[in-house]
Structure formats: C-alpha cells, structure tokens
C-alpha cells in the first residue's frame, strides 16, 4: 500500500536529498528525502505473524485488564491486512489504553493527554502512504481531547481510532469519566456522579463520522470483524470498544457479557440483516412515530416492520437513531458497525490540492522571493 517512487531507490545514500532537483518537489511522492529513506531497505515485508508485532517491552497493564484481550486481538488480525510493520503508526494519548503503542512493533508515539487525534491528523495528512491508528480511552478522547476527536471525525482524515471505553479513569485511580453513568459513586463522586454521560457512538455520528462501530473486548470474533472493517475504511473510523477495568470498574459490562443476560440486551448489527435479537429472536427494532427507532417484541409486529440494517445510508440520522437505543445502564446495546459510508478523505484532498497547484504554476523560489514589485539598484 506504500507508493514508493522507484526513481528514488537507485542510490543507497539517497537519504540526502539532492538539491539539484528542480524547485518544486514531486509531490506524487511524499518528498524526495522521505521516499529515499523508506526505499533504502528494499522490499516491504507484509507476510507477518502475530509475534512479529510484539515488542520486547513487558506489558504493564493490571492482570486481568481487558486491554490484554484487545492487544491480542489486534496483533492476531493485523497481519491479515497485508500492511508492513514499518508502514503502521500507532499514536496514543494518556491513560491506561494509551500504553498500547509500546507493545506493538510498529512506529508509535505515546503522546500527551487528549491530543493523539491532532498529532495523528498531521501525520496522516502529510503521509497518506501510512496506516495511522489512534488508541485512546473515554477520558482521553471524550474529555480532555473531545475537541480534537470531533474535528478529526468531521474532516474524515484517514485514521482508525480505537476508543477503549471502560467508563472510569483508571490511570488516575478511579474517578468517574465522561461515560460513567449518573449516580456512579467514585473517589471524586462520593455521593454519586451528577454528570450526564456521553454516548460515544452518538457523539461520533453527530460529528458526521463516516465509520462508527462498537465491539466488546472479550468478543474476539466480533471485535476482529469490526476492527477489520474499520481498518479497511478510507477516512476516519471510530471503534468504541467496551473494555473492562477489573480494578476500578469491574463488571461494568457484565450485563452484556453474561451468557444469560447478554443476548437479551445486545443488538447485533449486520448489514443487510433484519434487526432481530434476544433469545429466540424475541425482540426487534422498528421505526417509531417520530422518525426514530424503538424496540418491539417480534411477535407483536409484522415482519415487514422490522428494520433491515443499512450501514451505508448516507444520512447519519438512522445510525444516530440506532445509537439512541442504548440506555446508560447498557440495556439495548447495538454492537457492530453502525455506519460505513464513503466520503473523500482529508489527506487525499490535501494531496490533490498540492498536485493541482504544482500543475498550474511550477514552484519557483526565485520568482516567489522577487515578487511582482521589485526594483534594481545599479
């Protein structure tokens, strides 16, 4: 997937950019210097195994943390994408989840709190050849970094954002987060939280995100399926991953994980399939009288009334209505891909403008500096 300009590969010390080239770099490539550097080592190795993605760093999450499961799932499925390790970059913010890059043998930056989407935007916008991932959490993405998240989503930069939602601040030892339910008792809310929480999927769809999915940390298959679609999506994809913090918020998703209750409250989203769920398909999703969606009992409605999931609807209202089926206590949680639509990506449009500009008027530094009102002193 990396476009390497073969003209830059002939010299082994081509990492020093030849200034003799005409002004105006060939921007169909990234830049002469960068291209030369990444081409110096020859063929890309894309036939990887999960172990190729591990690093020598000891993983330091708490024993039993849901993050382990997610890390293993990512390391297992990433090789199937056929991307070379060196072409992947994982950018994270601050929080437990943001240690993720240290455990992945790719390029990575463990940045500062909330800013990973901004940093990743600059990287992805200037290097469309890379596969750039953001790993973040509910505090990192939705609280301190909320602004960057929504703007990244609306721009549709080619990024894959994994939002680990454990509904608590773990690294700071147990304060409520912007996804904690009202009434939650934590160290900073001894009488219960009075903050109304975000629904991350609703928030992303409100920002017109082109890809929004949700998955459970312990559901290896479902998680992998959503991650694969997210990775293949061109543009910003946001995957909310319900992740258990067994130290400060243990059992937060038990309602959905428990084999007895999970099927009752989980609405699997499969594109092109009717939204029927629950034991024996007892429940379903139908349209309500106000343009939204509601839960119904399957035997109380005509089969034609049951909504068939369409993740590709251009209008985000449907996906938003789906996201609103969830309540704070997780009863009725749609899981899967809410929305996946194709829109122009920011990095591509930016590159196109550069190419158009270069085609219209070749870059000439002398002409730029001289301007149109110069005079000569003899």
């Amino acid at each position: 997937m990396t476009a390497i300009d073969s003209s830059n590969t002939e010299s082994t010390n081509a990492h020093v950019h030849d200034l003799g080239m005409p002004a105006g770099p060939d921007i169909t490539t990234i830049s002469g210097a960068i291209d030369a550097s990444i081409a110096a080592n020859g063929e890309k190795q894309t036939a990887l195994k999960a172990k190729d993605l591990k690093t020598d760093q000891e993983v330091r999450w708490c024993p039993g943390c849901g993050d382990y499961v997610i890390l293993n799932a990512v390391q297992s499925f990433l090789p199937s994408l056929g991307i070379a390790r060196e072409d992947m970059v994982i950018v994270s913010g601050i929080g437990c989840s943001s240690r993720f890059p240290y455990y992945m043998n790719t390029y990575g930056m463990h940045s500062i709190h909330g800013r990973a989407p901004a940093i990743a935007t600059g990287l992805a916008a200037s290097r469309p050849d890379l596969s750039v991932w953001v790993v973040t959490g509910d505090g990192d993405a939705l609280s301190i970094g909320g602004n960057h998240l929504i703007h990244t989503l609306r721009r549709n930069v080619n990024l894959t954002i994994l939002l680990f939602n454990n509904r608590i601040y773990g690294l700071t030892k147990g304060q409520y987060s912007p996804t904690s339910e009202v009434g939650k008792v934590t160290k900073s809310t001894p009488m219960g939280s009075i903050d109304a929480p975000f629904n991350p999927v609703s928030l992303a769809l409100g920002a017109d995100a082109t890809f929004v999915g949700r998955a459970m940390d312990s559901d290896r298959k479902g998680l992998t399926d959503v991650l694969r679609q997210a990775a293949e999506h061109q543009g910003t994809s946001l995957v909310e991953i319900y992740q258990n913090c067994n130290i400060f918020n243990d059992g937060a998703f038990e309602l959905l994980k428990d084999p007895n209750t999970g099927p009752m409250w989980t609405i699997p989203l499969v594109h092109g399939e009717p939204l029927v769920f629950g034991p024996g398909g007892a429940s379903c999703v139908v349209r309500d009288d106000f343009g939204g969606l509601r839960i119904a009992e399957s035997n109380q409605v005509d089969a034609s009334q049951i909504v068939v999931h369409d993740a590709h609807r251009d209008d985000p209202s449907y996906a938003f209505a789906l996201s609103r089926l969830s309540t704070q206590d997780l009863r009725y949680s749609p899981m899967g891909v809410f929305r996946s639509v194709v829109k122009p990506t920011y990095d591509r449009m930016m590159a196109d403008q550069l190419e158009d500009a270069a085609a219209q008027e070749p870059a000439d530094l002398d002409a730029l500096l001289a301007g149109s009102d110069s005079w000569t002193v003899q």
Partner: protein
Amino acid sequence: MTGTNPGISPAANGVAPGMHPAVDPAIDAAAHSSAPGGLVKSVVELDRVVIRLAGDSGDGMQLTGGRFTSETASFGNDLSTLPNFPAEIRAPTGTLPGVSSFQLHFADHDIMTPGDAPDVLVVMNPAALKANLMDLPGGGLLIADSDEFTPRNLAKVGYASNPLEDGSLEKWQLVSVPLTSMTTDALADSGLGKKEAERSKNMFTLGLLSWMYHRPTEGTIRFLERQFRRKPQIAAANIAAFRAGFNYGETTEAFAVSYEVKPAPMAPGKYRHISGNQALSYGLVAAGQRSGLPVFLGAYPITPASDILHELSKHKAFGVRTFQAEDEIAGIGAALGASFGGALGVTTTSGPGVALKAETIGLAVMTELPLLIVDVQRGGPSTGLPTKTEQSDLLQALYGRNGEAPVPVIAPRSPGDCFDATLEAARIALTYRTPVILLSDGYLANGAEPWSIPATDELPDLRTEFATEPNGPDGEFLPYLRDPETLARPWAVPGTAGLQHRIGGLEKADKTGNISYDPENHDFMTRTRQAKVDGIAASIPATEVDDPDGDARVAVIGWGSTYGPIGAACRRIRASGRSIAQVHLRHLNPLPADLGEILARYDRVVCPEMNLGQLAMVLRAKYLVDVHSHTQVRGLPFRAAELAAVFQDVIDGTTGTVATLDTGSDTPAQTGAAL
C-alpha cells in the same frame, strides 16, 4: 529643544527643525516651478519625511499606506512603516476606537525606524484628528477631509465646534480639503452610487499624496487593475479617483509646493519591499526547499500571526501543506505529527497560543523532533492588545513549560530579517532535532522595509539525514543513540523498515528510548537535553559589537524589533560626540558563548525592552552584570529620541560628560544623524 553644541543639531536642507516646510512657494531652495493653468508650483527637496494616514477602520488606511509604501519602495527611498489599527474590525463609524492609522518614514538615506512623530498627518474624519493630533509636532502639515467634519461626526468624538474652522489648529499648517465630495464628483459618471463612490476617497487621497511627493503611479494603477480584475467598474472608479487626486494636487492653489525625496543609496542588487510576516512565510518556504523536506504548517488563526497562514496557504506548489486546526493545541500537535513523519513541522501563533501549546512543546523536547514554533508577539497578558506590539513573551519562550524543557529561541531584528531568522531557526531545529521558538512581534509582522532579494543558491544548505540503518551493536535500532557532536538523536521516519520504534512523553532510557523511571537515567537525560541545547552556542557566529569609535564605555543590548529604534538612538548619541556600543541578540537561547566576556568589557550595560525587563533579568542572572533596564509597554515601538535620552543619561552618568542632547521628543527630529 534645539540642540546646543556638541549636542545633536538640526539637519541642513534649509528646513527648520520641527517643520515640514511650509506650504509656501516662497520657501527657498531647490524650488523650481511647474505650472499648469498659470499656477506657480515649487518643488522642495527633503532628506526624509514621515507621513501618517489616519481614518476610520473602514476607510482603507492600511491599503492606502501599503500602496504609498510600494510606490515609495519602487522609487528607491529607504523606508520603514508602522501600521497601527484597532482589534475591532469595524468599530462604530467615526468613533475613537475605530481609528486606524499607517505611518511611513521614507528618506534619501539609510533609516532604521518608522519615525518618532509624523511631519504630515492626513485625517479622514474628526475621530482620526482627535486620536492623532497630539503626535503631530507644532508646524506640521495637517490635511483633513473637511466633508467628514459634520456636526454629527464632531459630536461623536466630543468636539463642541469644528476645529477646522474655530482656529484651534493654528499651531499647525492646516489644509482642509473636501476629499469625499471631490471623489464623488470625479466619479459622477462612473455609474456607481454615492456611497460606493465615496469608498474611493482613499485612492483620491493617495493620488494627492503621490503628487505631493513625486511618487511613481504606474504600480498603483497596475495594482488596482489586478485587485479588482473581476470588478472592472470598481477598478476603473478607483483608478479615476486616484488620478483625480493626483490632478487635484497639480492644479489646486491649496498646495503650492511639492516635495522630492531622492532615492537612497543602496548596495547594488535587486530589491523589493517586504513585511515581517511575508518574509517569515518566505523563509519557511525556502527552508522547505533548502532542506528537501515538505513543510507542514498547523495553525489556528490569531492576530498578528494569521497572515503567515494566509501566505503559506498560497504556496501549495512548493509542497507546503497548511492545516487550519480546530485550536492552537491541534495546530502544534498536527505539526509535531508531521515532523514525526519526516516533514518540517511548523506552527504559527501569538502569545496566548504559545501558552496553549506549551505542553506539546514539552512533548517535542522529550521526543526530540524538529519543530518550529513562531510566536508573533502582541501586547499581553491574556487577550491583551491583539493588534499592538510587545516583547513580553521572552520568558514564556525560555521557560514557559513544565519540567526542565530547554528550547532554542531566535528573534529577528527587522521585517526583512524575519526571512534569515526563519532559516536559522530551521537550521537549529533540523540539526539538533529540537523544537525552536521564533519570536517575532506585531511591529515586525506588519511593518515593511526594502529587502535585498537573496540569491536562492546562496541560502543555507539545510539538507538533513534520516536514519536508514540500525545503529545498535546487535543490529537493533537505538532511537536515542546520539550524534557525539550535536547530541542529536537519529530521525527515523515511519515507512523505514527495521527502524520501528516508539517515542513519547514519558522519560526515555538513554539510547533505547524505552520508558525509564530510573533516577540516574532521568538525571542524565535531563542534563543531556540541556547540554544539547547549550551546545548550539558552538554553531553561532561571534557576537557583533557595533562600536565604530572603539572607545565606548557603555553598551546597549537589545533583541528583536527594538533593533531599529536602538540603532537610530545610537546614531544620535554618536552624532553628539559620544561613544556607545550596540549589541543586538538574535540567539536568546542559548546565548552566544562570547556574550559574558563582551558585557564585562563595559562600565554600564543598558537593555531597552518592550516588556518589564525580561532579557535584563536573564543577563543579570547569567552573567552577574548590573544591567540597566529601560522598559516600555505602550503597544508601540520605542521612539529613537527617547532612547537616545536614556543612553545619554547613562553615558553621562558614567563618564561625567555634561553635554546636552537634543532628545527631539517634541519635534520630528531633523537631525543630521540618520534615524
């Protein structure tokens, strides 16, 4: 305050001190006549003129000033400008908060400042008169648009009677001209409505001034044609108004004299006029070209830095990417992300933005990636004075981060110097793999001067090596294994096979870059980051000390945009027979290695700053020198005369000399010394 020998004396040229030559054909000199319609018009030669145009924010004073500057530059005068405008885009018409002005100083010799006070003041309404009259020395020429001195406009700013008629302006040479109605008369056949036609009065005024000062007019006509190429009717109206103003000057009896200011001798070469923000933008484009790296600008709009974003966004053909971020933090974040990917990452802002970016600057210090942070300083604190100049971000630039986070700091000294300073900042960032703060200010950003266009092949070679091979003893890649000379770490860009590595804000283990909480390692890494920045001093040329007499016992030290006023003040001091040494710093961190020794040579060191003594504090702390701090935070540059008085006091206090100096504080200095 006429100077007495050996104080600075008034200039020759037959012009009385404090006087723009009277509008009186009898006045002497190289006057020669030219006369359409039998009028006798004389021409007087001047060595320099300071003109200030003042009007409503909507009157187009900045544009008019800019055009007059272009005409003056192409004529070959040396020049310096001072735009001064409110933060409000359109304050209520005709009110004091809405007054916008543009001051231009041009001369037949090398000048360093936009002038302490105008010789000529053009006011487009009563508010402009009220806001600017106190700066016009007695005897100065005052041109007023009499059409706008209506009872309503006068009342808005509290004039009980019309100052154009009540004799209150007799101290000045007042010329009342109905600029607005003459403009609409001239455009009677243009097909434009009265309101629209009135908007061309600034071009009428420009035409009149162009006649008065013998400015070439072709450039302005070309400019108007270009500017309004999609609105030919507007272009034609503006050109007609411009010509009408010029012709009015030639035919009216109100102006019997016009003035000539001969071109200034300049070194042979090709010139243009350039503002600081423009020069800085071109410096960034040039840095990209000379380094072979794509430039990535992440920026959030902020006065007075936005023009850099505007300018760079025009240069996509050079591979320059501009990203208007959602906030200041995202602007620098994206720039740092781009740097990680191998770009020359840049963010541009002003003081409040630097405050927001501080944490990311710290991350760049920790990740040791090249990054340029441009701070076009403005009055602070908080929102402060968005459109006014100040130097009060020095300590923020040096120290405004958590932890021990050394960052190189560079400051340009003039609008044109913004170009070279930017290339120097890029050199340091790329060579040492570090964020660098470039401290411009509002005065440099918007001020303009003639600029000798550099030969691009003589610009610094900024080529940079990326890492392409593992560097460790066991074939591994060590992202924090340093270059022994520069202490820079390798820059391995994503996409390079075998060099995958992780960086971040947590403390790094030496060499491997892995997370480390080891006490000895943290102590070592903290000192190493400091040593890397300190080591930049080895690449800085020896400090220039300007002491033409060689016997100065007082040195003045400055940084940034005070170069012009300090230099002009030093010329006055020297013209009075005293000696003074001038040192002007470009590198504020690290300071030049020879600076301590230089400062120690002088009995006294004076440090003028547009803050409350920030550099002075650093110098005192670092060199144990008893620096005399002279400060001012008026949102405007220093006046050369004021600084000269300060320097004289220090010198005379040091040497016991009793000679007096014409400080010129109440006159436009017509000194023999160039300003």
